[in-house]
């Protein structure tokens, strides 16, 4: 077949030398046709090879409605492969990494930060978030491997494994989120169980690569700690049959460990005292005594489409549970959040858009009495952040965030970088070459009661491989 096309080219090439300009156009057309013929021949050869190599045809469950053959010209661009019939998924299909035909989607996402700050060691007091850029030069604050898919007709599941490089360039790994969700419960009820980021407010349950800024809002770090509020437990949520969106969720979680920051957090070991301390108090061993020692996270959310192009989503959340600084010390956190988005009715890749997001949190922490040190006291922390994102051109987003946190004065404040008044203003600019990568430049102006003023500039690069998880609103 190939020699035939070579022969054809030969026939045409020879006389072309003696033709005039008018005929040249025809020749070009012929050449094009031959090119296409050759492509087609190659396709057919490939197809033939694959048919010969394939095992005997299997009975097909496909519809017999295949379109009649048409006078079609050979396929278009690079993807000049013979068309395939798409098949319904069946459990007998092998695992592949192709979305739509796989048991699970596998995705990998990495963030690399570079930058500097007037703070010599920004990780010590300025950038306290667990996925913030934490040092001058480069940092890799988050890489994650995520798996998700349907378990069976009744459950879906998700797992996210985080690998991070710390200050000494040592790698830490954690099972950040591992949970299942039901899909087949009646009455609009859903159950979620496992280890996951608590459904509190808007940003707490988002992963770092979904954030609009390189760092975690101050108030979230202050109230939920560097890693956000995350624990093992279960969520029961209900979508009432109202004409607009309302959702009630009740999370019941262990609330222990560092990720239960203001709750059953064992704190840090202080060698001199031979005990673990948190907020200046020795912590009590934290096993559950009864159901009242669990962490309860109720949330109510509602949403309206203000117009066809504008959507509003608002929520109220709380987190209520014991803390480890005393036998009966408890912590209460309350939050309100609001998200508004406008998107053009003729949006290209989702641009242009404007989005506004704000969250306010208030916490009350009953610090227990230390017989050898501080007496009992109530510590209050409160603050908010507000941010506006403007997707002004496809792939480009400009954003501005303002934040403020404060609290009452505590006895141990001088030793606690998580307390004291702070303000931060952060403008940034993000370019998304595709939805699988981004480059973000951010400036932070910081003012803190404990440290004065600081200026930082961070550049963030993100890349994703494999399946790209769909976005919630």
């Amino acid at each position: 077949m190939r020699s035939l096309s070579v022969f054809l080219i030969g026939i045409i090439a020879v006389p072309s030398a003696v033709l005039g300009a008018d005929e040249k156009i025809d020749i070009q057309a012929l050449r094009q046709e031959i090119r296409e013929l050759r492509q087609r021949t190659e396709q057919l050869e490939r197809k033939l090879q694959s048919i010969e190599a394939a095992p005997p045809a299997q009975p097909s469950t496909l519809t017999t409605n295949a379109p009649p053959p048409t006078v079609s010209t050979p396929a278009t661009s690079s993807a000049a492969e013979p068309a395939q019939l798409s098949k319904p998924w069946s459990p007998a299909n092998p695992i592949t990494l192709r979305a739509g035909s796989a048991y699970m989607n596998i995705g990998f996402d990495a963030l690399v930060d570079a930058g500097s700050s007037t703070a010599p060691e920004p990780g010590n007091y300025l950038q306290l978030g667990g996925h913030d850029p934490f040092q001058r030069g480069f940092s890799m604050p988050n890489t994650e491997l995520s798996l998700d898919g349907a378990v069976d007709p009744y459950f879906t599941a998700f797992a996210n494994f985080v690998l991070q490089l710390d200050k000494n360039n040592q790698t830490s790994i954690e099972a950040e989120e591992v949970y299942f969700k039901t899909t087949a419960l009646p009455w609009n009820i859903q159950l979620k169980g496992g280890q996951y980021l608590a459904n509190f407010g808007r940003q707490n349950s988002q992963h770092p690569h979904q954030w609009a800024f390189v760092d975690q809002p101050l108030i979230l770090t202050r109230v939920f700690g560097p890693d956000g509020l995350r624990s093992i437990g279960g969520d029961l949520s209900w979508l009432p049959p109202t004409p607009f969106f309302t959702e009630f969720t009740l999370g019941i979680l262990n609330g222990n460990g560092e990720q239960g920051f203001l709750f059953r957090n064992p704190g840090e070991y202080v060698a001199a005292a031979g005990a673990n301390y948190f907020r200046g108090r020795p912590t009590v061993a934290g096993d559950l005594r009864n159901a009242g020692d669990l962490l309860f996270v109720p949330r109510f959310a509602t949403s309206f489409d203000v117009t066809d192009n504008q959507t509003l989503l608002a929520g109220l959340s709380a987190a209520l549970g014991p803390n480890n600084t005393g036998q009966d010390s408890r912590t209460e956190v309350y939050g309100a959040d609001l998200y508004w988005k406008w998107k053009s009715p003729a949006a290209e890749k989702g641009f242009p858009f404007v989005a506004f997001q704000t969250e306010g949190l208030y916490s009350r922490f009953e610090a227990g009495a230390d017989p050898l040190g501080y007496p009992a006291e109530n510590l209050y922390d409160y603050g908010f952040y507000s941010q506006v994102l403007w997707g002004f051109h496809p792939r480009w987003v400009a954003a501005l965030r303002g934040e403020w946190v404060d609290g009452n004065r505590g006895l141990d404040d001088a030793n606690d970088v998580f307390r004291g008044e702070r303000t931060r203003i952060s403008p940034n600019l993000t370019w998304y070459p595709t939805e699988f990568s981004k480059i973000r430049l951010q400036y932070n102006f910081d003012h803190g009661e404990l440290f004065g003023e600081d200026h930082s500039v961070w550049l963030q690069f993100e890349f994703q491989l494999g399946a790209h998880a769909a976005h919630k609103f």
Partner: protein
Amino acid sequence: MKFTSSVILAGLVLAFPLVSHGKLNVIATTGDFGAIAREVGGDEVKVTVLARPTEDPHFVDAKPSFLVQMSHADLLIEGGAELEAAWLSPLIDGSRNPKIQRGAPGHFMANEGVQILEVPTALDRSQGDIHAAGNPHYLTDPVNAQIIARNIAKKLCELDPRACQKFEKNEQSFNARIDAKLKEWDQKLAPYKGQHIASYHNSWPYFAKRFGFVLDLFLEPRPGIPPTPAHLAEVIAAMQQEHVKVILCEPFLNRRTAEKVAADTGATVIDSSQFPGGIKGVKDDYISLIDHLVNAVAAAMSKP
């Protein structure tokens, strides 16, 4: 606890009027599926379309209001082939509606039974945003619309056997109208068979294949990657060489870029949408949309 149980009770009471209705509640992700579901379902179904006809179907916001609509849907029509990959899964998940979960009887994958073009043999994102399952814009071929109408009728019969005859009748009438129209469309475009056409995004291979055009020039250098001046220069040169007269451009793409290329090549930018209702002044049913496209392409092709 008393409060909680009274809230739950109130919710259940509220639930009843919404649960008991005669018509099947059909949700279509995009307007093309919605339009066909309307044709086939007639007055036995209530069709809700999620994406707006003028927006990029790959980048739709998963609005919470969609969750509410999906929570009491009887049938969800998904285009598949990764058309809605960026936004549909959290909605299905959050709808808490067992009827429309993937694999459940109330979930319809429209791409099943359609011959999908451009299925890549190697998945490599350096080639741009290529869909692993092939090109998902298959409804621009009216023959595929006929297949999907038949499959939707089958699905609706399954869900509401009582109204099956109606669905079958509607489907046959719709497909007969397409059959008649196909002759007319073929006739109108026959003189231009084999000619090259250009498009901004690679959304039109099925349309091109059906009517015998060669669609091999795209303003985007790779799917989803915006045009660059260097690439546009190449496209313009190729268009001039091939005497390309048509640039297909959807409402959410950069019309100005397309117009610039058109001005340099003498081609016509055609308001083209895959979704009924996506073009101003064109009726929002499937046949009117294809009619508009065929007429506009024929008109542009007939220009000297």
